[in-house]
């Protein structure tokens, strides 16, 4: 039983989340274990999780994308520009903005997969380019977005905010795809051994490019959601998002060398960070400390993981 929990990051995170929640619930019985607080936590992590699902896909295939935070901002600003300056109807504006995110993913994916540019350099460069483009489109940002747009992120279903539903849907759909479809199963092989995957008849380059497109597309969806939830689009949205998301995905069981990870891990990793952040707010820890503590938690988790695996993998 212990072995199972230790070896599977999903179980480990669930246990860890329960333990942390119970202890916090005992210390702060009036503020922490409430429906309002938990729906707030889920709402806070929903955007991160949607982006993290795409990042999980990339890390499973052995690559990553640093430009997702910029894509979130760019899509938010672009959709606002389309609606307010170009008077394009809401649904079409959304489609065009997401299409532009897919195009960014395509460029990243093409250059990395076919031209063999290092993913870190390529997406770092793209991060700057896209952030610059976002600033260019919106300058100081856009407010008072149309009602029909804002309703996407601001309405509720069964008392729960819509972004939470979108997040759960994304996690469920991708979780199913990764475990049950031949197409997505191939990503584990690509991350496990790229050369062997190619010789096993997998079109590695094409698959990798598609992974970047999917991940950028999810970042685009996140951009739409965040701007509709805020009713505003700022070019500074999603700053630092890429690192937060990569942290969540690594916490969720992915490895930088590829081949490992499950989609629910992206949610649990993001949730873990969200709960810790929430606890610190409740406990009135200063904002500066929050970042430090999150960093320490990441290092500690990875160390614990290595230590436990070492101890139990030999049994």
């Amino acid at each position: 039983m212990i072995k199972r929990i230790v070896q599977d990051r999903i179980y480990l995170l669930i246990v860890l989340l329960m333990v942390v929640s119970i202890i916090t619930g005992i210390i702060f019985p009036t503020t922490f274990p409430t429906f309002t607080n938990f729906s707030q936590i889920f709402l806070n992590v929903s955007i991160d999780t949607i982006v993290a699902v795409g990042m999980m896909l990339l890390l499973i295939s052995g690559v990553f994308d640093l430009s997702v935070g910029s894509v979130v901002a760019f899509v938010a600003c672009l959709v606002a520009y389309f609606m307010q300056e170009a008077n394009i109807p809401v649904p079409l504006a959304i489609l065009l903005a997401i299409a532009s995110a897919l195009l960014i993913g395509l460029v990243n994916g093409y250059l990395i997969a076919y031209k063999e540019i290092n993913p870190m350099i390529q997406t770092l460069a793209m991060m700057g380019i896209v952030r610059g483009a976002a600033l260019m489109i919106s300058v100081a940002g856009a407010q008072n977005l149309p009602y029909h747009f804002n309703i996407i992120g601001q309405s509720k279903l069964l008392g729960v905010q819509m972004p939470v539903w979108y997040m759960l849907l994304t996690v469920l759909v991708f979780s199913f795809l990764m475990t049950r479809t031949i197409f997505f199963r191939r990503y584990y092989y690509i991350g496990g051994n790229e050369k062997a995957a190619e010789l096993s008849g997998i079109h590695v380059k094409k698959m990798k490019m598609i992974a970047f497109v999917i991940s950028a597309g999810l970042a685009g969806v996140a951009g739409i959601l965040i701007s509709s939830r805020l009713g505003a689009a700022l070019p500074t949205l999603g700053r630092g998002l890429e690192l937060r998301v990569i942290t969540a995905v690594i916490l969720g069981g992915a490895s930088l060398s590829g081949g490992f990870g499950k989609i629910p891990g992206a949610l649990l990793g993001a949730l873990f960070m969200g709960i810790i952040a929430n606890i610190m707010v409740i406990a009135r820890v200063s904002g500066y400390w929050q970042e430090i503590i999150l960093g320490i938690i990441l290092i500690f988790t990875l160390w614990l993981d290595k230590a436990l695996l070492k101890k139990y993998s030999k049994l």
Partner: protein
Amino acid sequence: MQQLRLEHISKSFPGVKALDDINIEVKPGEVHALCGENGAGKSTLMNILSGDLRPDEGTIIINGEPVSFDNPKEAFEKSIATVHQHLSLIDNLSVAENIFANQHPVNRLGLIHYRKMYQQTADVLSELKINIAPTMLVSALSPAQKQMVEIAKALARKPQLLILDEPTASLTDKEIKVLFHIIRYLKQQDVSILYISHRLSEIFELADRVSILKDGKYEGTFQKAALTTQQLIKRMVGRDLIDLKPSSAKQSTILLEVKNLSGEKFKNINFKLHRGEIVGLAGLVGAGRTELARAIFGADKVERGEIKVNNEVLLSSHPAKAIEKGIAYLTEDRTHLGLFLQMSVQDNIVSANLKSARKGNFYSHAKAKELAEESKTKLRIATPSVGTKAQNLSGGNQQKVVLAKWLQTHPEILIVDEPTHGIDVGAKFEIYGLLKELATSGKGILMISSDLPELLGICDRILVLNKGTVSGELLHADATEEKIMALASH
């Protein structure tokens, strides 16, 4: 060195007793061969001598004095140098920096004395008749050159005991000759050599005495003169092995036809492969055999020529296409190109045909498991379960997993590249049996191998490649090692 004695050495890992009461004595100036199947404990014993592992029990005695090593550095200090099977060179550094890793010659200020280092490197290399500049980067070397540099690295430490683990696995005949020459020279200098190899012919050529390990236990030490190959194999494997002969199941249907095929490393290749036939592809390392195989499989570009499968032209630009047409390619480098080491046996077995593991439209873990279990039984893969990671299997079982993976694609044509490279005698014979069974069932097999006895043993026909062209073809009845070597190296 006077002598090295191992007394009652035992070592356990979780779940296995890797070494059980080993007693071996190596005399000065002796070439002492260590034989055993994979998993017999040879590597463990070697790692104990090189300071990588500590024995649980027992003593290592050098010159009558018990010693113990906590790390490889302490073993060096006792003049023991090891050439590991898996290369320990650093690709981005020069040959000289690799040879003098962590023991650079220094000048009076304690800084690295580059001129001296390059000079000393040049000396060692010329002694080994290796024609490489000391400043060359290791990444630019061929596998055989890397192996020679690895040996040079060990010799630069002027050892009294040299441990060689499968040193000839990636060497060509010419380099093997040089290596043997060096070994004999070292022997004259009273250096002791512990020689580990799967190639029994080398052991009979070089060794003075042979110690045999089986399942971690010591089976005894024998004078070479007192052993025959058959006896040696029997002691290692614990049973007699059948004699090799081809299955002779050749039918008249042509499965694969290659016409005037040219690529970067080969030109104008023509041959036919029939149903039920095993065709050998012999040649020296670098003769273009692997490149030809990769081109047929669509992994490398073809410059000119035609490949026909079942009389249908194959316009192959990607392995996916070749697999679809019924070609399978078992690569020579199973750990880097064949297996997904971190993934389970089951995931590996279905990797080339994920669609076979579908139930309805979707991938089914249960179906994949079922297929893997079938393969496990059929190929007698020794693994605790199909969920075990491929990296935890022995070489022979890993190779069976790769074979199982390709059989899962239901191929008509199997191209097997060094299928028994680095696997033990028992597993080798099992692989031969499987290949012959496949031929009998009507598949065509193209077998690349540098192990001539195995080509002579099971191939109906042998094509010899020399500098990228076919220099001759020998039928089973006429083929001899001499004829093959003459065609391969003229």
